[in-house]
């Protein structure tokens, strides 16, 4: 605990550095995970606030809470926030904290690259939001359809923030994906075979593959858009022979795999939580793994179901209808396996379990409406209406966000050493569950009765004032339930009951070490012999697992090059805004300086 020289073994158990500088220079996967998680939760509340304003505007016909232009910015930023600044980073936060623990590793494969991913993500998110400060946030929807994004129709800076901001965020995700794939391939503890990994780690693995392959396609689409807007290229200029539909193909070629980037981590959480609180191993483990991989694989062949309305032709319609329906099969397998896991189990309905079970139910509703617009003729009726809004909020809030909250209640004691309040959690769950359905179930009707999405108001003659009022009231209550969650997260830091190593009597490795884990995670691990090490062989996992050995554990030194390199990467893209051809080169030069220092920094 005394001051240590830079090259000496840097850590001791309980040696917790918490100053600002330590957070800035940390390369510990657990601290990076916390940074990711806290940032994503803050963005979740910002995105939720945007949703509240949107719902207020739509509470009754012809309301004038916000201007049509500001409404466009609101729904665009709400979508971008929830997908790029909440859904992805909160999954990455959990990967960061949990995956190395679940496979018995001391850190991720490239700890400094991991910190770099976070800082790039943070700067990208801040840049995307900076448009609001000059009143020109992105306003063409998160999908940024061409030709609306051309200079002709979007002369402001709005879509510049979009094109460059998403580019920065994409770089962070690709680096993150590379890191997790390598970590899982390389750093599994002795005996931790692939088919012994917890499902959450498996889904992190599959998700990382999608991130690494899907984001580069978005990068290319965004480069085309950037060049069209800044240097007058013709990629989406119909007058020069360019095809605006190409944007949709590239965007959805990224965009549909992106859907699985968002939901597969949620599947992973639920697949870990349900067995723990059913006191039964996951039903059909191998099939669950294959189903996840299959979803990711088929997910590459369904993108045009977002484009039925563009008239892609009968054969393409038929193909993408079929492929989309096929993807329901592995998804259905997962749902039945979760149910079968609970069947006959000793169920404990903790808050975490409630959110997990409701995730299964709500995701199924979203999945069923998804099948409805997989059918291309039906989709022509549903597309661009609130029916679609209902669908994807059921999968993303009912599915992803429920799973995330389940994971928060589940792993919070591991991260902080204290349990969250079950009493507040109970209120949190029921308010959330009821208000979520009150908000979004009516949108099925609102949509089928003809209310278009992305429009700032509606006429009283449509007769939808009542349903919309109900949805808005539901949204407010949902806001309250999220405040309860925030309160529970904050108060339990100090007032929560001490958790101990394994408060849920769970079976996977992260529960073998102390709560919170020491910086090195595990001092030593016995050879892993099965999927449920802590159930199969509880006596082997005593304090030797986490007690610091004589002489300490050698861990790499903190580094400030990740954050500096991140400023270089962000600056390179942000400096496009100057419209000076040489300005991005300045950013690139600074990036190169940082990369050299990054590369030649002694490992410590």
């Amino acid at each position, binding site marked *: 605990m005394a001051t240590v020289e830079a090259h000496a073994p840097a850590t001791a158990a309980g040696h917790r550095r918490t100053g600002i500088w330590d957070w800035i220079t940390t390369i510990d996967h657990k601290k990076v995970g916390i940074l990711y998680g806290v940032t994503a939760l803050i963005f979740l509340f910002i995105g939720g606030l945007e949703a509240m304003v949107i719902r207020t505007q739509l509470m009754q016909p012809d309301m004038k809470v916000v201007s049509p232009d500001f409404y466009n910015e609101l729904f665009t930023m709400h979508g971008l926030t929830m997908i790029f600044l909440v859904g992805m980073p909160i999954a990455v936060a959990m990967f960061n904290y949990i995956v190395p623990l679940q496979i018995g590793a001391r850190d991720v494969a490239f700890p400094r690259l991991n910190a770099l991913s976070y800082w790039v993500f943070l700067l990208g998110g801040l840049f995307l939001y900076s448009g609001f400060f000059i009143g020109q946030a992105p306003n063409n929807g998160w999908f940024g359809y061409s030709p609306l994004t051309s200079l002709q129709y979007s002369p402001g800076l709005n879509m510049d923030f979009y094109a460059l901001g998403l580019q920065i965020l994409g770089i962070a995700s690709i680096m993150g994906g590379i890191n997790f794939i390598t970590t899982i391939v390389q*750093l599994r503890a002795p005996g931790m075979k692939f088919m012994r990994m917890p499902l959450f780690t498996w889904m992190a693995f599959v998700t990382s593959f999608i991130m690494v392959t899907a984001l580069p*396609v978005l990068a290319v689409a965004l480069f085309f858009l950037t060049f069209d807007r800044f240097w007058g290229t013709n990629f989406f200029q119909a007058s020069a022979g360019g095809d605006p539909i190409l944007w949709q193909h590239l965007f959805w070629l990224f965009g549909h795999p992106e859907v699985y980037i968002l939901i597969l981590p949620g599947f992973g959480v639920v697949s870990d939580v349900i067995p723990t609180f059913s006191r039964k191993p996951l039903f059909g483990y191998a099939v669950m793994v294959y189903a996840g991989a299959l979803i990711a694989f088929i997910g590459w062949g369904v993108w045009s179901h977002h484009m039925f309305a563009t008239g892609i032709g009968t054969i393409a319609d038929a193909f993408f209808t079929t492929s989309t329906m096929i993807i329901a099969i592995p998804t259905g397998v997962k749902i039945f396996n979760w149910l079968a896991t609970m069947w006959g189990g000793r169920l404990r309905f903790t808050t975490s379990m409630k959110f997990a079970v409701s995730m299964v139910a709500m995701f199924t509703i979203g999945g069923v409406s998804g099948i409805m617009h997989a059918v291309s003729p039906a989709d022509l009726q549903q597309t661009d209406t609130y029916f679609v809004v209902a669908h994807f909020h059921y999968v993303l809030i009912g599915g992803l966000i429920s799973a995330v909250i389940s994971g928060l209640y589940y792993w919070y004691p591991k991260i902080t050493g204290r349990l969250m309040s079950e009493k507040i959690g109970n209120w949190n769950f029921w308010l959330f569950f009821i208000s979520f359905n009150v908000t979004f179930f009516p949108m099925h009707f609102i949509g089928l009765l003809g209310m278009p999405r992305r429009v700032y108001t509606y006429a009283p003659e449509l007769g939808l004032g009542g349903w919309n009022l109900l949805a808005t009231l539901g949204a407010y209550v949902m806001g309250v339930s999220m405040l309860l969650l925030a309160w529970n997260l904050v108060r339990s830091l100090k007032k929560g009951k001490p958790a101990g190593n394994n408060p849920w009597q769970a079976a996977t490795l992260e529960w073998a070490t102390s709560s919170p884990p020491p910086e090195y995670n595990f001092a030593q691990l016995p050879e892993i012999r099965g999927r449920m090490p802590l159930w199969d062989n509880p006596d082997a996992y005593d304090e030797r697992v986490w007690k610091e050995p004589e002489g300490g554990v050698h861990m790499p030194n903190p580094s400030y090059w990740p954050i500096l390199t991140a400023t270089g990467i962000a600056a390179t893209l942000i400096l496009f805004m100057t419209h000076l051809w040489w300005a991005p080169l300045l950013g690139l030069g600074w990036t190169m300086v940082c990369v050299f220092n990054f590369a030649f920094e002694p490992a410590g």
Partner: protein
Amino acid sequence: MEATSHAAAHPPTATGLPTLKVGFWTFLGSETLFFGALISTFLVYKHGSVSGPYAHEVINIPLTSFSTFVLLMSSLCMVLALAAVQKDSRKGALLWLFMTAFLGATFLGCQAYEFTSFYHEGLTLQSNLLGSTFFVLTGFHGAHVTMGVIWLLTLWFQTWSGRIGSGDALKVEVAGLYWHFVDIAWIVIFTVVYLLE
């Protein structure tokens, strides 16, 4: 042999492979999709330009065949450089790393010449679809080659100053993976852009 020499520097991994290499292969997988999207766009737009100059009016196949050959030879030099490092031949490493970088720079010189002459013939980023797709696709490839040349020169400098020995063959091998990838990407681009009718 290699495994034992690295045992001290790298803790054992689950697969026995060096972690840097696994990470780098993953990165190259990502790059494949990046170039895949660029090349697909070029193909989709190949006959889409509504005004000239058209491809057959500007493209100089002999020059590009030469630069393609140069790039292919640079891959050969890269192989020889790695072999030299593994055999602990500092002289060989210096020679072949330099040759690889030199041939890469020659390729870039050809590209600069080509871009300039296209520009004078009226093909620009803005002129038509061919200009947009051609310059962005080959420009991104050129940027990759530039990064590779900088990387190779860095390795050359490190070898020269004695900071890379046979124990660091992995560093050269990973640079080689990158270099070969960029070369293979060019073979596809050359075929699609210059040879396909």
